[in-house]
């Protein structure tokens, strides 16, 4: 064995139990090796608890203990870091999965782990804040969407939103009502092209595409034809606009079928009015010519002795009388025919009696049905007019049923309310007596229906009809402020409904034309040439001599000249220059006994002034003049 350098003979020989040399160096080294190995495995729990005097050995032991402590601290730090990372990792994972109850620990001995925990929690708060704001905005958007939906649904107009591929994305309840399809069937499933008449499609598709290139390329508003579930076509007014930032467009669809119908009614009525005026004028002129022809033909007839020539003249007179008859019918159509004697007629009774006569003219193949109300209906009308109306309609009905059928004559009293008046503006609200003549004959198409009341329009073979039957009916009904409704379907039949106002205050009083005639001289003063001519002409027609003045100055000049010749002056109230009242005053200065009637467009009530409304009902003005001349007023 090697000699130990110990001055006491080395640790092997040392008797001192406290001397390190008392222990074997190799044991200490083994112990040191074991401890180092433990530390290397991560076990820092063991320490070397021996003191040796040998400096180098003690230093080794101290170093190993110090290493153990350092490694222990490092391990603890490592573990603290790892556990912190694991915890934060788990919190982040839970947050990512949407579990916002996860909260990172803000407690750690390691500053960075602690800060990471705080950062995660702050980030979470901010995130939650964003989410809450987004939710709030989402709620606002949802409310806005609901409001928009409510507006679109309650706007009272059909609305659809369509995509670029023409699919309907949204349809409101009005669109459902208009088409008969439900939202479920429409939205996302049907294209708008399925709802419109084929004749309109090409143009509308072109608009659809152009609008998506540039909205200004397609019209914003246009008319179209909408087709509903049952194939019924409605006239509609489209209003289309692009929705900003999308390729979608919104269209409002207004049903204008009723409006169109009303427009057509008005146009038709205006056309009939014009025709009435024209035919009245023609008939009037024609009558004047006929008066000459018939008058001179009559004279010729009395002067001619030669039988052959006399026969020729008789033929002229016959033809002239036929022409006068024709002119009379035209005058009826133009409502210029005078109303005869108006009587209160029990229409029920009249129709019962009339039906007996009707049976003889309709033939055996046509069955007559009379629908009369239990209550008796009275109406004030010239019986001749009633007969003309019924005869014309009944013979037309008969002619429409050459193979036989049913002829229904109906009567009832109805009230027309304001609502009906709005859709049928030509029929005023009020009580009406309705006469109905219906047949089950050939019926007529729309084009024919539009023209039936025109004079000389007929569908009957040449020589069978004059084309004046229905125009006469039209003229007569209008004369009583009545209205005619025609319903007809080809192959099914035609129904005429005559609406006669039950309380018609405008019916002209029954005055015998003879009582209105006179031979006196009248001065007519009116600045309006047409009115002046009109008044002068009917005064002349009734036998009066007429002087005309176009203003007050002219009137006074004439009056000064013909003071005693003029029996009465008819003066317009409102005139440029000297007013009607002033003209009256000056005439009275010239002749205090002068008879004067002031005419006005509106009812007037002036002291010491006799006035008449310019109703242009000649009878009223004539009656007034007659009464004043006869000093009845």
């Amino acid at each position, binding site marked *: 064995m090697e000699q130990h350098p110990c001055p006491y003979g080395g640790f092997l020989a040392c008797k001192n139990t406290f001397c390190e040399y008392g222990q074997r160096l190799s044991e200490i080294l083994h112990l040191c090796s074991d401890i180092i190995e433990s530390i290397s495995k991560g076990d820092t729990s063991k320490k070397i608890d021996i003191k040796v005097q040998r400096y180098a050995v003690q230093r080794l032991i101290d170093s190993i203990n110090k290493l153990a402590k350092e490694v222990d601290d490092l391990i603890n730090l490592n*573990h603290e870091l790892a556990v912190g990372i694991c915890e934060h990792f788990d919190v982040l994972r839970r947050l990512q999965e949407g579990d916002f109850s996860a909260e990172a620990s803000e407690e750690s001995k390691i500053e960075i782990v602690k800060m990471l925990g705080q950062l995660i929690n702050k980030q979470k708060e901010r995130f939650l804040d964003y989410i809450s704001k987004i939710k709030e905005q989402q709620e606002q958007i949802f409310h806005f969407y609901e409001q928009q939906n409510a507006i679109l649904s309650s706007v009272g107009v059909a609305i659809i939103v369509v995509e670029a591929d023409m699919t309907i994305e949204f349809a409101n309840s009005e669109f459902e009502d208009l088409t008969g399809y439900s939202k479920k069937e429409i939205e996302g499933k049907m294209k708008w092209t399925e709802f419109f008449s084929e004749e309109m499609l090409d143009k509308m598709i072109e608009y659809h595409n152009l609008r998506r290139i540039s909205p200004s390329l397609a019209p914003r508003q246009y008319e179209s034809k909408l087709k509903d579930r049952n194939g019924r076509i409605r006239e509609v007014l489209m209003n289309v606009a692009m929705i900003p930032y999308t390729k979608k467009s919104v269209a409002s669809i207004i049903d204008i079928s009723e409006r169109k119908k009303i427009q057509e009614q008005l146009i038709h009525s205006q056309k009939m009015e014009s025709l009435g005026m024209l035919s009245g004028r023609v008939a009037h002129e024609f009558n004047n010519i006929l008066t000459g022809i018939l008058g001179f033909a009559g004279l010729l007839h009395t002067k001619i002795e030669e039988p052959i020539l006399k026969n020729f003249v008789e033929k002229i007179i016959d033809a002239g009388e036929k022409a006068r008859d024709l002119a009379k019918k035209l005058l009826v159509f133009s409502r210029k025919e005078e109303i005869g004697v108006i009587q209160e007629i029990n229409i029920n009774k009249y129709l019962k009696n009339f039906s007996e006569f009707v049976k003889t003219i309709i033939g055996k193949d046509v069955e007559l049905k009379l629908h009369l109300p239990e209550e008796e209906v009275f109406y004030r009308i010239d019986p001749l007019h009633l007969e003309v109306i019924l005869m014309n309609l009944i013979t037309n009905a008969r002619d429409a049923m050459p193979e036989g059928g049913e002829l229904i004559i109906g009567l009832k009293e109805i009230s027309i309310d304001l609502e009906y008046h709005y859709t049928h503006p030509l029929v005023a609200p009020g009580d009406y007596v309705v006469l109905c003549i219906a047949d089950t004959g050939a019926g007529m198409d729309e084009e024919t229906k539009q023209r039936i009341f025109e004079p000389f329009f007929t569908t009957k073979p040449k020589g069978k009809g004059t084309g004046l039957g229905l125009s006469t009916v039209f003229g007569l009904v209008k004369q009583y402020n009545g209205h005619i409704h025609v319903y007809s379907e080809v192959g099914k039949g035609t129904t005429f409904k005559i609406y006669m106002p039950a309380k018609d205050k405008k019916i002209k009083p029954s005055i015998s034309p003879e009582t209105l005639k006179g031979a006196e001289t009248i001065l007519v003063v009116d600045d309006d040439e047409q009115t002046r001519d009109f008044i002068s002409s009917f005064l002349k027609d009734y036998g009066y001599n007429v002087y005309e003045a176009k203003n007050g100055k002219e009137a006074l000049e004439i009056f000064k000249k013909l003071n005693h010749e003029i029996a009465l002056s008819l003066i317009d109230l409102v005139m440029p220059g000297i007013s009607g009242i002033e003209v009256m005053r000056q005439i009275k200065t010239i002749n205090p006994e002068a008879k004067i009637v002031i005419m006005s467009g509106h009812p007037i009530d002036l002291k010491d002034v006799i006035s008449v409304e310019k109703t242009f009902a000649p009878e009223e003005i004539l009656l007034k003049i007659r009464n004043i001349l006869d000093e009845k007023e």
Partner: protein
Amino acid sequence: MADRVIDYSGLKCPYPILKLSAQYPQFKEGEIIEVIGDCPTFEKDIKAWCSKLGKTILNIEKQGNKIKVTIRI
């Protein structure tokens, strides 16, 4: 009987818990897993991990130098 056994033997701490965290998203709620390790601080680390993440330790078993910890996720 565990639904899943994960052996971290030979891995020095804190690798086992770092790996366990990384594998965690694959586990299902309520699943029973058995983790095995031989690092001297393995038990301490797993206990700390369970405590921080709110998992329940069902059993700890020592087999020689290996430790088997049963956890409910």
